[in-house]
């Protein structure tokens, strides 16, 4: 009974962690804007946490570069299973305008598996919320499979 309660609340109230992985801040402040009164994702039970060990969903903005790829991998490994990853913005998806720069590895999916890609430069809060909702559907599926 307790197990089914945990299973249900995991997908109903996901805790997200945001990591800025070399973004220009445009997507970061849109992720933060999702938490503030106009968009207010907290009404859906979504809370932003700073500790990867508490997080269910990882939001990554920006391109991966040679210095922070280890940090990103490390954060991903510290998150407990099941987990979902959402790449935000053109940079997070493919590298965006910076894809040819010398220190850029490319999109987030070169380092860790990505479940949902949110397009836009920068992605709008509506798009990010939409991406999180899509990610939650996948997350719920993963919770099912983990049983």
């Amino acid at each position, binding site marked *: 009974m307790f197990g089914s309660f945990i299973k249900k609340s995991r997908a109903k109230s996901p805790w997200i962690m945001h990591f800025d992985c070399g973004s220009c801040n445009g*997507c*970061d402040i*849109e992720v933060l804007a999702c938490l*503030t*009164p106009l968009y207010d994702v907290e009404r859906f039970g979504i809370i932003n946490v700073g500790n990867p060990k508490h997080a269910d969903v990882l939001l990554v903005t920006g391109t991966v570069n040679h210095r*922070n790829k280890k940090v990103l991998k490390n954060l991903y490994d510290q998150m407990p299973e099941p987990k979902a990853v959402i790449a935000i913005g053109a940079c997070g998806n493919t590298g965006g305008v*910076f894809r040819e*720069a010398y220190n850029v590895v490319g999109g987030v999916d070169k380092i860790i598996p990505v479940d949902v890609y949110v397009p836009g430069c*920068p992605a709008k809060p509506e798009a990010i919320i939409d991406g999180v909702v899509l990610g939650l559907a996948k997350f719920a599926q993963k919770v099912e499979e983990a049983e």
Partner: protein
Amino acid sequence: MAITVIPFGPQHPVLPEPIHLTLKVEDEIVKEAIPALGYVHRGLERLVEIRDYHQMITVCERVCGICSMIHGTCYSQCIEELMDIEVTDRAKMLRVIWSELHRMHSHLLWLGLFADAFGFEALFMQFWKVRERIMDINEATAGSRVIVSVNIIGGVRADLSPEQLRWILSELDIAEKEIKDMQNTIMNDYTVKTRTCGIGVLSYDQAYELGAAGPTLRGSGVASDMRMNGYGAYGELDIEPIIETAGDCWARCTVRFREVLQSIDLVRQAISKLPEGELAVKVKGNPPEGEVYARVEQPRGECVYYIKGNGTKNLDRLRIRTPTFANIPPLLTMLPECELADVPVIVLSIDPCISCTER
């Protein structure tokens, strides 16, 4: 007393961006702070080799999303000076309007984050609520919330109709009232003053000698504002640098708060003086050989662009000096002898923009 080493960052709840500080702590007192940068370095200055000078505006706007409009303006001013292009007065004034809107949204964002750094979450939400009005203005006039991308070489690509101008003014009236409602809290509240007054003091001489920029410099009493040089259309506007003399976190916060109100005033002035005319002039050919500097005032301080043209469509060199880079040495002088709990407040008080710093 033994020295404890505490890593701060790169992933930290108060920091929206990755910067790493190694804090050497004795008891609860920070003795030394050693920064480690490079987590956001992309190497975009080298992109001039493969992108032509028109395409580079898109890249320059993404040096930093929060002050993107002002980066675009600075780069355009450089190219326009190199190619000897005379921008119309209307385009210059429109750039001022969007720049000041950008400064307002950046400062409101910072004031919110700063309130969050000392645990005043209600104030954080209030500031971000007001900020959404500015974002709505950006979206309605330029089509995008954060990166407005209105600059092109030779002018701007979007216009403001008389109805839009009236609507902007009415929105600003509401925003001004809402911001002034928070003035008493951010400046005089007991909780806020306890966490900010006398914390992270930077004296006038230190600020000047260490080369601080922007509100960090003005919070220590140095009257330095690049807008006073009158680049673009700023020369036609009535503008006074805003200074505070205490040099602590409270002073830097107050400078930014007053600058939001100043920006509202500047947008009003710019709208009242907006001349008629073309939006952009036609640009032909490639930038000639030569070197140009341009300096602008960003929300975080003075920003310098240096470009070197070689007669082809690609530039030879692009060099950007951003204000946060100038503010890191002052930060490292503020941190020693502070309490560990004050580190987030002091780090945020310089308004760090790491993506600007590392590019």
